[in-house]
């Protein structure tokens, strides 16, 4: 694909936004100002930005669970932060929190607290796309751990057998919660799973945003014509499974040090822009500062917003529509 200078700057802005969003959440959560468990995607910005930036108007996405800053971009960051804090201003009224969300306008979800279920439900969205001849594709994401859920196998078979307009991406960061992926999976190349179900697939470097964009661009074009495929992106998880998870207990931390030094997608893009004189240090620093401030502002707004009333939670209209 061909990119203009502005395209590159926009990609850098998104990468920086995603990084700053995660860092602000980390800061507020670890200092006790933000309630709840957080599952950061620090280090994974190339994957989430690369994928979400390729979504066109008619497409739909059910992402894996670390793409949170980009989910926030689709829904409005203040509404997403409010949702993960259980606030009334959240885009699901605070009832979902981080795991059960749905937003029709954003073409997002529904997600599920059961790993694998959201992906299986997304097969139904893809079926609707095929039946109604929607001009678009459905992007379904899962982590290396979720790939082992039985219902995921059923979903992959349904996609292949029914020939659905899907791009399925695997975010393989090598860790299924606190288990090494290769200790709990029979494969090292996770994309082979797709071949087992009859879906063409490949494995790619998920730490390079331009690689992710190219791969998704091609796969999504095929999917919009009704040809499903699966892409595995290999990435590195910098943090533990959740914020506060003492990952030194189960991980060789040199893996994390190496990734931070050599596979930082934000740093790589910054070096690229400087090397090609597309921007100066000052201009890039200004972008970082602006994104940081934006995330802080949305965080403060969400933190100060009200909780749901008990009456909201007990509203019978949430249980049954009129018969």
């Amino acid at each position, binding site marked *: 694909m061909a990119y203009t200078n502005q395209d590159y700057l926009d990609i850098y802005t998104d990468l920086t936004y995603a990084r700053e969003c995660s860092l602000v959440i980390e800061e507020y959560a670890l200092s006790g100002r933000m309630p709840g468990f957080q599952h950061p995607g620090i280090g994974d910005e190339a994957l989430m930005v690369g994928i979400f930036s390729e979504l066109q108007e008619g497409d739909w996405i059910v992402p894996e669970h670390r793409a949170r800053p980009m989910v926030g971009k689709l829904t409005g960051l203040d509404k997403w932060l409010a949702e993960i804090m259980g606030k009334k201003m959240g885009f*699901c*009224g605070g*009832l*979902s929190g981080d795991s*059960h*969300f*749905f*937003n*029709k306008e954003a073409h997002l*979800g*529904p997600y*599920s*607290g*059961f790993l694998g*279920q959201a992906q*299986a*439900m*997304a*097969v*139904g*969205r893809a*079926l*609707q*796309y095929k*039946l*109604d001849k929607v001009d678009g594709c459905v992007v379904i994401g899962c982590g290396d751990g979720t790939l082992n859920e*039985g*219902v995921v*196998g*059923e*979903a992959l*078979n*349904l996609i292949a*057998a*029914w020939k659905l307009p899907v791009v399925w991406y695997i975010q393989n960061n090598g860790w299924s919660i606190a288990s090494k992926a290769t200790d709990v999976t029979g494969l090292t190349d996770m994309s082979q799973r797709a071949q087992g179900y009859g879906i063409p697939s490949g494995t790619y470097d998920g730490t390079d945003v331009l690689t992710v964009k190219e791969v998704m661009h091609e796969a999504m074009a095929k999917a919009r014509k009704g040809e499903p495929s699966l892409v595995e992106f290999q990435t590195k998880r910098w943090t533990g499974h959740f914020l506060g998870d003492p990952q030194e207990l189960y991980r060789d931390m040199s893996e994390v040090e190496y990734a931070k030094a050599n596979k930082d997608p934000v740093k790589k893009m910054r070096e690229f822009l400087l090397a090609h004189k597309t921007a100066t240090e000052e201009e890039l620093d200004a972008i970082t500062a602006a994104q940081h401030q934006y995330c802080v502002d949305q965080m403060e707004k969400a933190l100060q917003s009200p909780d749901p009333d008990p009456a909201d939670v007990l509203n019978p*209209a*949430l*249980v*049954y*529509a*009129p*018969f």
Partner: protein
Amino acid sequence: MAEKMIMNAFNEVLGEEMKKDKDIIFVAESVKGTVFGLGGMLALPEEVHDRVIDAPISEAGFAAACVGAAVAGKHPVCDLMFADFTSLAYQAIVMEAAKLRFVTNNQAEVPVVFLACQGQGISGGLHHSNNVEGWFMQAPGLVVMTPSTAADTAGLFRAALHQKNPVLFLLHKTQLAAKGEVPDDYVVPIGKADVVQEGTDVTVIASQYMRAYAEKAIKKVEKDGISVELIDPRTILPYDREAFAASAKKTGRVLILQESPLTGGPAAEFSAAITEDCFAELKKPVARLGGANTSIPYGLGSEAAVMPSVADIEAAIRDLVK
């Protein structure tokens, strides 16, 4: 008005509604060719056949897909065949379909009908004979329908397709060929029981197989002048608490029947509600008969041992009026 078998009453409503509502899709295993599908029992007009979708043997997967398709605006009828297999689709039915409206703050709705045949009576063995309605009473957001007649089958299925809540539609596998009069364009209001016959001495509450047995027992006790009011709940969730209370206040003596193992089933819920509402009027404690608290064996003779018999029901009615 016409006399029809339950199976045909169902098919005709499905065919009519599929012609009118282009979003209805019918998803089932081996539905195109076999005697259970378009090749036999599922008689549907040609023009809707492209919305009849053959599913692989993966109940968890295609039930979840039907939930997703419903959220996406389709109106799926998801045929799980045997009610026992709802256990494979439990996540989709209870954890997703019943709960998505709530957890998305009313942004998602799930107008899906999960269809299955339940119950004993054909020597189906351990995993093809369960009556599952009790399993799903604790799923607020779900509607559970258990029609016993051709009219109620047509009326409830039409009602199910005309509203937006997820429905578990349970037919009884011994009743598919049972005939009954079906009024044209019949719709049964959801959550309303049917007073099948009025009486003054004893209220009997039963549906499907247990209702058929109850009707035989009632004929016997009527010969001795015992007047029985028979109520068919028709829906297990939500259920018609008012109709049960009105009858219990009239007769003061209630017998509730349940095919599934007695402990913790719908009869317990109905009994608690009736006792709360009618304590002053009850002449005896609410009585229940249910399946034995064990598993279902293979073979019709052994099957009968784990379910209330006509004689058991007759004895229970007589006991209430002593």
